């Protein structure tokens, strides 16, 4: 799913708009699989790990099965939003929470974009 993500974000002006002004790198983990999401003014570039000593501003970690349920279209109740996973206790945020919250709408839209594949 993540492999197909770049065009789903970059060709969608609505999503890019909400990332305008964001120039950050964050980590997304699907179980043991690591991906670095590099955002340049709303445009996304994804790099697949594993990584050694790479820097990121914040990390979003969940089990692979959890992301699979999150990416169902339509997702089931309780699996439909990043904060829904947070309330379940199925996702963990680490690092700079301030940046995560500042771009929360963009991050939610980016992470939900695989549903459109």
């Amino acid at each position, binding site marked *: 799913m993540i492999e197909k993500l770049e065009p789903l974000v970059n060709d969608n002006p609505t999503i890019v708009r909400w990332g305008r002004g964001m120039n950050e790198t964050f980590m997304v983990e699907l179980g043991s699989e690591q991906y670095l999401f590099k955002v340049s003014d709303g445009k996304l570039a994804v790099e697949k790990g594993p990584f050694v000593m790479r820097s990121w501003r914040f990390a979003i970690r969940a089990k692979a099965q959890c992301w699979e349920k999150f990416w169902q279209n*339509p997702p089931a*109740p309780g699996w*439909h939003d990043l*904060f829904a996973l*947070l309330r*379940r206790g199925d996702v963990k945020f680490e690092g700079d929470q*301030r940046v995560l*919250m500042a771009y*929360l*709408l963009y991050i939610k839209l980016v992470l939900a974009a695989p549903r459109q594949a």
Partner: protein
Amino acid sequence: MKLEPIVGRYAHIGEQRVYFEEAGRGIPLVCLHTAGSDGRQYRAVLNDASITQHFRVITFDMPWHGKSSPPAGWEKADYRLTTGAYTGIIMEFIREMGLERPVVMGCSIGGRIVLDLALKHARELRALIGLQSGAFVERYYDAAWLDHPEVHGGRACGAVAYGLMSPLSPEKERWETVWHYMQGGPGVFTGDLYFYQVEGDIRSRIGAIDTSICPLYLLTGEYDYSASPRDTEAVAARVKGAKMTVMKGLGHFPMSEDPEAFLGYLRPVLEEIRRA
């Protein structure tokens, strides 16, 4: 041009300048908006002729919200909603407006406060409708980030509200709902969440609600993870006679995110109240 039947006015309730909207005539139905939003959430209820032919639908913006003013001196201290202040302004509004035994319907924080109204003011009310009612929600994120100088409050509040809705609700109405959240004043959503996530824990008291005095209806959207169907079931299990319905395909803002689907659930409840 189409003119809606909704009329908006300002009322002075004690020291507060409060904005309200109304439409229809008949049994008063007071509608309470969610945390960090305002009465526009009830636009479809106010515009529904099948409801307004029997009900005088009224929604007011809580002080600090929508077009209601914050109190004088608001700049000096953080806003924090409490159970006492919330129930106080609702009952003051009802009395000042001369509403006789109204139905009160509230969503989210409003769905919580109707439980307090059921305990303290049952004899003054005809019926209560809790939308997305839960007796308490443990904190699962830090609402302080919604009021931080380095986080745009409108964007962050909008992002929180966005996710609480159902992915099946129409895009137009979902983004309208987000817009209301993006327009809230700094710290207002956070101040409401103080009631919702800290002060307003009503779990130990709801067993004393007597639905034979004032009926209690609980309608909860299945996609809500803040006040989930499970949270409402826990309330219904403790309150004898409470009538609970899970609303399929709806989320935390049923009246605003998918008005048509919501009205399908609301109309039979209002009909039952009217015929009682």
